[in-house]
């Protein structure tokens, strides 16, 4: 592999890892916000337990979203300084907005939400998780704006060998954005719904004492997946028109073609299963009582994640050899002077550390699911600020 391939692989690996966690964040955040709101309004303790249990899963998942995101943020400057040189005056703007208008607030409000149990008034505490959801979606918007600019450099013109911004609004009405954004957001809902469904199926299958809790959760998970899958597939097909008009032979290569086939197969089959089997079986809780189906639900849980990674492969590999479509090739964007040794070392470091942490994180999520709502740490009691007095020596 030469330097370009190595740097590309590094971006693909860290990007895929990032998205695996982000897609679940996008799906779980609104669910947790709704659960918390129901608790705040009705005061039902079941809703509080749901908020804390699913909120803890959300938060454990979020940790990896942050650390993989840090690498993404800095990778442009590290490996692809040609991009900031050529297109930074346009491409930099949505990224800057993502950090200032979305991530900065998301992280601040998430801190308030995680640590604010027992101290924030209930309404303000709920407001925090809604603000986290809102800013997470804003973050997806700005990142997709930036990515869509790479697919189709709208709103810009080349002056003196560099792109300048001509029409900021055109970045937001980019045809490669308008259907892709809802496609991704609904894919997130689908993934979130499936995690809630799979975890609930596990508890129902194991016949743990939390039956009521997980019958309700199963319902939430399947219904969320129903809505998510409907929109994912709808906006998925809607993408063919705009993509075909700006990137006509995008899907002709072997890799994008195969990945597209995989995504559509999964999307189509699983959507039918959700719509025609799982959702109708919610009536009178048949699904919750059909224990033999529960292992199947657990096995299905990773499918939206597989489809989502396939989707990114389609979108990004299909763009090759361009970084900014039709304008700047990936090879030309590589940081000048970067050596194989540089990239190999950083790739090994990032992939090794992030890969390991991702595994640990999934084990921790599985563990939190297994331990169930009875042993949730999120929102547990505080520690007194003064140190425990040293025990007076016993006589």
């Amino acid at each position, binding site marked *: 592999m030469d330097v370009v391939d190595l740097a590309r692989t590094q971006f693909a690996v860290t990007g895929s890892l990032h998205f695996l966690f982000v897609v679940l964040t996008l799906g779980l955040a609104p669910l947790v916000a709704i659960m918390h709101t129901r608790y705040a309004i009705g005061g039902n303790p079941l809703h509080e337990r749901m908020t804390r249990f699913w909120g803890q899963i959300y938060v454990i998942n979020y940790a990896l979203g942050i650390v993989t995101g840090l690498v993404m943020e800095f990778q*442009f400057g590290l490996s692809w*300084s040609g991009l900031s040189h050529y297109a930074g005056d346009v491409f930099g703007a949505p990224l800057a*907005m993502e*950090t200032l*208008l979305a991530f900065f*607030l998301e992280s*601040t409000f998430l*801190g308030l939400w995680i640590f604010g149990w027992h101290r924030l008034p209930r309404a303000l505490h709920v407001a925090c998780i809604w603000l986290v959801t809102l800013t997470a979606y804003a973050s997806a918007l700005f990142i997709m704006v930036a990515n869509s600019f790479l697919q189709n450099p709208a709103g810009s013109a080349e002056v003196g060998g560099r792109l*300048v911004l001509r029409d900021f609004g055109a970045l937001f009405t980019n045809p490669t954005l308008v259907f892709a954004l809802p496609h991704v957001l609904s894919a997130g809902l689908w993934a979130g719904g499936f995690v809630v469904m799979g975890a609930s199926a596990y508890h129902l299958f194991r016949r743990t004492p939390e039956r009521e809790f997980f019958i309700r959760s199963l319902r939430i998970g399947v219904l969320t997946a129903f809505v998510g899958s409907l929109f994912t597939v709808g906006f998925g097909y809607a993408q063919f028109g705009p993509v075909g008009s700006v990137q006509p032979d995008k899907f002709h290569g072997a890799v994008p073609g195969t990945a597209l086939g995989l995504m559509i197969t999964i999307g189509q089959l699983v959507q039918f299963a959700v719509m025609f089997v799982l959702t109708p079986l919610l009536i009178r809780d048949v699904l919750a009582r059909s224990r033999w189906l529960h292992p199947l639900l657990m096995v299905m849980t990773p499918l939206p994640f597989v489809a989502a990674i396939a989707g990114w492969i389609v979108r990004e590999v299909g763009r090759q050899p361009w970084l900014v479509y039709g304008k700047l090739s990936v090879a030309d964007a590589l940081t000048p002077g970067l050596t194989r040794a540089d990239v190999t070392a950083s790739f090994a470091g990032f992939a090794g550390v992030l890969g390991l942490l991702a595994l640990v994180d999934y084990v921790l999520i599985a563990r939190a699911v297994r331990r169930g709502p009875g042993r949730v740490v999120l929102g547990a009691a505080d520690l007194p600020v003064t140190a425990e007095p040293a025990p007076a020596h016993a006589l």
Partner: protein
Amino acid sequence: MDIFWFLTFAVLLAGYFALEGFDIGLGVLLPVLGRSPAGRDRLVGAMAPFVLANEVWLVALAGVLFGAFPVLEGQALSRLYPLVVALLLAWIVRDAGLWFRRRADGAAWRLVWDGALCAGSAGLALTWGAILVAVARGLPDSPLDAPAVAGGVALLALLAWHGRTFAAWRLQDGPRGSGRALLLSACAAAAPAVLVIAAATGHMLGNAAPDPTLSVLSVMVVPVAPILVGAQVWVWRTFSRGALPTFF
């Protein structure tokens, strides 16, 4: 317009070191100040509700660098390649330590992630020191040499002191815990970075993005600025006093 964004950059940089500086310093001192697992829980509990709100200052800084000074972003990050990679790895390890240390039981588990927290924090301080030295010297070709190491060690000591002041203030340990002492150590923690960036003023202003880009950024960001500030103030009002939350 370019002056406005340069000042924003400088404020974010100063804020990062003043705020995240104490998290880093406290992480470095974790084994020293917290001899027992319970002691370490107390220290982490003191900083935990602030970390998420503090570390984003650097993310925002990187965003402003990319949005308002894109050419410099490419130049600086690629010239500092090994240091930035080390910085990121240290940051990741530190964050993993925080998020994971209480997610499973067992003394060994805690020890591993407390170690990650401490080592990652030390790595952050050392690489930042080296980066500041390299920027002050105009991005030399090989940024890893004796002055860089000296800068790293010096910053480590400075941030450790800041972290200690913060812990004394938040945990109300003894007379050192006054708010004025914390303000002083925060200014000291920010000072080196502010000096380095002040020296680079001319270079930065000469490489700002053109006005159309900066105007768009201003129109989008300035109206939201009060919310950014308000959210930070809210964090401080909520978590400066009282019992210590336990999630991290």
